[in-house]
């Protein structure tokens, strides 16, 4: 769906994006992670033809961008940073105005499509109030509605849950997952690890303009080869598993082993009461922090 080769953007002497090789496949929910200022937004803008790349090439939906924008962009829905709307028009009037721009998506179906997307994003009961009077969360929902208006094959979303309360975040997450099962590929740019962890199947991590990780989420969260055991009989277990215990505290142990079932029967046979036994996994946070440096919004003394 999205493929970039050596995508690079320089602003003067600053390299914002450096030799990016993205690969987003059909059906992915792709989490594009990176600290503030790592180049996420610049990348999103390049994919949409808003910012022109200094070097490299990219294809979106199999066609080269930005030269095929006229064919590609009608099939792409996007939220780029904050949503934007004409403040003195109502939400509905805004959607209608944006829908009448560019290649027509069918004037006859417009009112129906607007009703549909407003319902989808939870603004079904919206009245004629101008957008000026909307809350941050309502604007965010309206922005999403605008992105969904033409039933896109690919959604490019930059921080889509910005300004939403926990209920709203969950609602939007469910909506995105639902769209994904219906066949929409989603490219989600975010700095919220938890959001990406809950939503995405594939993750790319950007660090100061470079792609440092691009992998399936499950692979990143693979087991560490250690088992976490909770037991009241820590001393007994340590004696039994001499040499295998890598760490322990008063109520639990970390055991180097790749056979949870075997370890469990061994412990139980020796009379160790096991409250919980689970493979330890790498967390996305560890993986990301290990691969990246502090964000560019931190300005340390050299």
């Amino acid at each position, binding site marked *: 769906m999205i493929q970039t080769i050596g995508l690079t953007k320089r*602003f003067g002497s600053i390299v914002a994006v450096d030799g990016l090789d993205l690969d987003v496949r059909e059906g992915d929910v792709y989490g594009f992670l990176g600290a503030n200022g790592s180049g996420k937004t610049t990348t999103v*803008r390049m994919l*949409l*033809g*808003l*910012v*022109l790349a200094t070097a490299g090439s990219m294809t979106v939906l199999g066609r080269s961008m930005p030269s095929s*924008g*006229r064919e590609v*962009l*009608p099939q*792409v829905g*996007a939220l*780029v*940073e*904050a*949503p*934007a*709307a*004409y*403040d*003195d*028009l109502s939400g509905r009037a805004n959607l209608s*105005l*944006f829908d*009448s*721009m*560019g*290649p027509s998506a069918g004037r006859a179906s417009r009112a129906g499509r607007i009703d549909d997307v407003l319902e989808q994003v939870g603004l079904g009961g919206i009245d004629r109030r101008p957008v000026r009077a909307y809350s941050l969360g309502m604007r965010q929902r309206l922005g999403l509605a*605008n992105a969904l208006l033409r039933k896109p094959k690919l959604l490019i979303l930059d921080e889509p849950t910005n300004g939403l309360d926990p209920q709203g975040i969950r609602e939007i997450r469910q909506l995105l997952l639902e769209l994904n099962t219906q066949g929409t590929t989603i490219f989600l740019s975010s700095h919220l690890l938890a959001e990406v962890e809950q939503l995405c199947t594939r993750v790319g991590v950007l660090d100061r303009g470079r792609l440092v990780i691009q992998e399936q989420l499950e692979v990143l969260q693979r087991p560490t080869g250690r088992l976490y055991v909770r037991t009241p009989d820590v001393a007994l277990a340590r004696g039994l598993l001499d040499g295998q215990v890598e760490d322990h505290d008063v109520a639990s142990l970390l055991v180097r082993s790749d056979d949870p079932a075997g370890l469990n029967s061994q412990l139980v046979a020796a009379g160790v009461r096991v409250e919980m036994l689970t493979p330890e996994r790498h967390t996305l946070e560890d993986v990301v922090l290990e691969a990246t440096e502090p964000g560019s919004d931190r300005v340390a003394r050299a």
Partner: protein
Amino acid sequence: MIAVELRKLVRSRRTWITILLIDTLPTLVAVLLTLTDVGPRPGTGPAFLSAVLKDGTLFPLAAIAMVLPLFLPVAVAVTAGEAIAGESQAGTLRYMLIRPVGRTRLLVAKLASVMAFVLLTVLVVAVTAYVVGTLLLGHATGGSSTSFSGTALSSQQILLRTLLALGYAMLSMLGVAAIALFLSTVVHAPLAATMGTLAALIASTLLLTLDAASSLQPYLPTRYWLSFVDLFRDPILWHNVVHGVVLQVIYVAVFLAAAWANFMTKDIKD
């Protein structure tokens, strides 16, 4: 896209308030003329005003001559200055471009909408001025008017020349719009584009009064703005009008080309 921009134009409350404000000045002048019956001495004051006292149907021309040097350029500079920079500041520009609306298409639509605004303003001013003029100042007897050269002009001649004059005024405003549109693609704040345009026009007007700048004067954008008055001489004095047309066409071509070149290669970052 032009239709979309026109829709935005006529829906905007600001459009109508601006037109109303512009329309106030000539109406006020008509009322004052009626109450006092004191016209400017021939050769002073706004064009046509002395003639208006004799024939109210000429008042639309006088009204246009009043709003052209200041009000109309200010309104055009505001509207065209906002064209790209305003959308950019509101964040709507990026959502337009990814719809996708081609950048060239957007520029053309914006320019068309600015010119539609000028046409609308000129028409409203002309119509109100005609109504106010005939009601307050009355008709001339005999169905003909007097040209600046003292000969009689038929109503048909007046109409034709009025249309030419309106066209000329539109072209002059297109020149202003081109400058403002160019600046609008350069700066971030719409206000900067508007003020930049006005600064250029004020500088031009100032240099026109300075003898030392006489070698520059034929190339200044405001030099021939009021030359449409020459269309009402008998026979028509074409010299300045033609110069004005050529000059404005050059300004429009240069600044639109610059606006296009700049906008096509611009990174949309806000």
